């Protein structure tokens, strides 16, 4: 541990810890917009500047590491600078809520009492529309913090978004303004999850009027594969329907990252055709609801019949890609010992 001074009080930090984290652990909240713990320090939005003794200018807490004896101040002129920087961002923030996502800039402005003193004449950016059904992008909500682009480059290692141009025309766009479907993008929605203003948003929530703060979150495990990503189902308390899926950086197996299925494929939960109980085909050729016991017995009888008529080698077992390691182990056990066949496979292997 190293010792430093924060707003006149003694404070401690880990060796090499970023000032923004050390301040938070010592009870001082420093606002950030472009910072993301998953990404290399960027220091672009400047919202987190703090006074550091010996430095002629305030330093970004998101990119400055605490050193022994550092004297840090978040009062004096820091609140005014935060307010001014917020005003600046607001002066080209033409659309605060394109898709019902939280907007950290608006929250910050409310907290700091900041309002745009003017709207820049060149604030309006060229609109962007994309034929994919999942992710939308409203350039007029973007504050060029570059988190989404850095996420695609540093975390996903893909080419989906670019910070294009220089000067007033600079903007963030899918690479060469193509549809995301025509870039390397896999629609994982990671860029959307790191966007602080909601400029990138779930298209299906556009105009749905779902306010983030009213949603109830239930933590669960994604069922799409064996990785076991931890997800939060965001449920509308009135309709009791899942509205969207999110995840958190502190979740162990996936650190908040998701794939297109985990983030966007939850419609099946409320689908009218979804099977919610076992069905067994009767003599009449139609499917009839049954208990699990009846259903499993019917399956077992059928398999036994095949073995009797054609031998166990006539049976092949194909395991679902959605199963975990442990479940796959049980499947091969069932195949080899229970059914007596070595023909067992998982579709994950292909």
């Amino acid at each position, binding site marked *: 541990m190293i010792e430093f001074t924060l707003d006149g009080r003694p404070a401690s930090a880990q060796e090499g810890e970023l000032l923004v984290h050390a301040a938070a652990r010592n009870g001082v909240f420093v606002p950030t917009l472009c910072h993301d713990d998953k990404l290399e320090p960027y220091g672009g939005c400047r919202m987190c500047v703090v006074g550091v003794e010996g430095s002629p200018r305030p330093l970004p807490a998101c990119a400055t590491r605490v050193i022994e004896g550092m004297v840090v101040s978040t009062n004096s002129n820091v609140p005014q600078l935060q307010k001014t920087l917020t005003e*600046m961002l607001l002066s080209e923030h033409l659309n605060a809520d394109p898709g019902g996502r939280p907007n950290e800039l608006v929250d910050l402005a409310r907290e700091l009492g900041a309002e745009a003193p003017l709207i820049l004449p060149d604030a309006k950016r060229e609109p962007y529309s994309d034929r994919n059904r999942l992710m939308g992008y409203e350039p007029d909500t973007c504050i060029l913090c570059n988190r989404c682009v850095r996420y695609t480059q540093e975390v996903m290692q893909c080419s*989906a978004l670019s910070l294009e141009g220089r000067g007033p025309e600079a903007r963030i766009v899918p690479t060469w303004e193509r549809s995301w479907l025509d*870039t390397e993008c896999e629609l994982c929605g990671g860029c959307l999850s790191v966007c602080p203003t909601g400029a990138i948003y779930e298209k299906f929530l556009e105009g749905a009027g779902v306010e983030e703060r009213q949603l109830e979150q239930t933590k669960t495990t994604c069922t799409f594969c064996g990785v076991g990503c931890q997800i939060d189902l965001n449920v509308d308390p009135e309709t009791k329907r899942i509205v969207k899926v999110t995840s958190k950086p502190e979740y162990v197996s996936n650190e908040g990252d998701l794939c297109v299925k985990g983030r966007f494929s939850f419609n099946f939960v409320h689908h009218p055709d979804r099977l919610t109980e076992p069905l067994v085909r009767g003599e009449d050729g139609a499917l009839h609801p049954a208990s699990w016991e009846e259903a499993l017995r019917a399956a077992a009888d059928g398999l036994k019949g095949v073995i009797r008529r054609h031998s166990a080698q006539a049976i092949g077992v194909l395991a679902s890609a959605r199963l975990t390691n442990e479940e796959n182990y049980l499947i091969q056990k069932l195949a080899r010992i229970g059914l007596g066949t070595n023909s067992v496979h998982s579709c994950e292997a292909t």
Partner: protein
Amino acid sequence: MDVLRLATVLETMPRERTRLLDNLGRLRREVGPITPELSDALADHMRLRHGDVHEVTSFYSFLQVPVDAVRVCTGPVCDSRGARDRLDGHAIEVPCLGHCDLAPVVLHGDEVVGGVTYSTNGFLLEPDDLRVPPKLSSDDVVERLRGSGLTGMGGAGFPTWRKWDAVLREPGPRVVIVNADEGEPGTIKDRYVMELRPRLLLEGAVIAARVVEATELYIYLREEYATARARLEAALDDYRKAGLLAGLATSLVIGAGAYICGEETAMLESMEGRRGMPRLRPPFPAQSGYLGRPTLINNVETLAHVALILRGDWQPARLWSVSGAVGKPGCYEASLDVTLRELIDGYAGGLVGEPAAIVPGGAASGILPPAALDVPLTREALTEWGCGVGSAAVQVFPKEYSPLRLLAETMRFFAEESCQKCTPCRIGNRALHHVCEELEHGRAAMSRGQVEEWLDAMTLTSICGLGQAAPYPVRNAFERWPELFAPLGPAPVEEPASA
């Protein structure tokens, strides 16, 4: 697009990311303006992401423009001399082409329309002979630079010996970069050095490389300086033939139109094949520069002075670029404490008409009123006027060109050249440009108090010198010509500084 041509050219292109800008420049010259398809083809060849090449291509002004395009400079000096009348449907508008002594300037492809003439004196007129640099120990050279009092001529004015000493203290391998990305409006001195004394510059660069025991030497040259490029290449050839570059890998890196790449860390990013956006400091380039190696970056003129100092025939002096409403615009060697009047009357052919405003050292150095004509152009004396000596680019604006117009054009320049990384520079400069434009119509886009707050935030929180220094000319104008800003309301009452 000529696909066969593309395939042939691509095949010869190196795959290291550090060669991306070079490859893009060659593709533009040999195949055509960079289109999304060309960009993707190069990305595939270099095994880079399509987006990485898109980001870099779009960052520069010229990569998507044909090589034979007509470029009209609308920097403040050219603008004050009617440059905008030269804009027609085909010409593209660019900020400062570095030929301010010939304003208004138009480039057709690489050629300056009307040809180039020089108006100069001193060492720039001496024969550019190739001399073998003296064999001196590193300590000796650093000591002699220290004794000379030489400071960097690029704008920041940092003592040269201290920079060299700092790089020497870091473990090798080390790199030397010549900053030849002259772009500060009004500044033409480095072009004069490279076109008239390229061997003298290389002498200084080779000395620098020897002193810091560098294994690589780069010259980062702005794309618009085609003549300087040709003369540097010829001089490099001479040096190579004379065996003076043995053990020193030397290359010219050609920019693609971005003022910010003259900023040291933006230049490093640009050379490493990324957008030219300044890095956070620390670490400084002397500690961790090009590819993380200790890197010495010196301005062209500084290195010419280094060579002269070690030749033993140097008097403290610098090159002053003088342009605008004067009889003989040009680049003149004069003492470090020369006054504007001495410079203009003694060298630049006297004032033409009545001056309204004088910029002493480039866009970010501030704006002086005619009352300052007899002030020595030293850092100390100019500080009292709220200005800096910058890159010593004196620009004289006649009374027909209002200081408000000058300020608006200056802020437009900063806004268009901002790399967009940090909020205060990205938005502040655009807002100030708008405020000036509105004032010309007697309207107030913001109150004076708000403008002052925004200027403070720009000075204090911008990442690099562009955003930090952009407020200077605004503050100068507030003080010198308060009547122009009356619509903004009264200046806020100064509060006593709190601890």
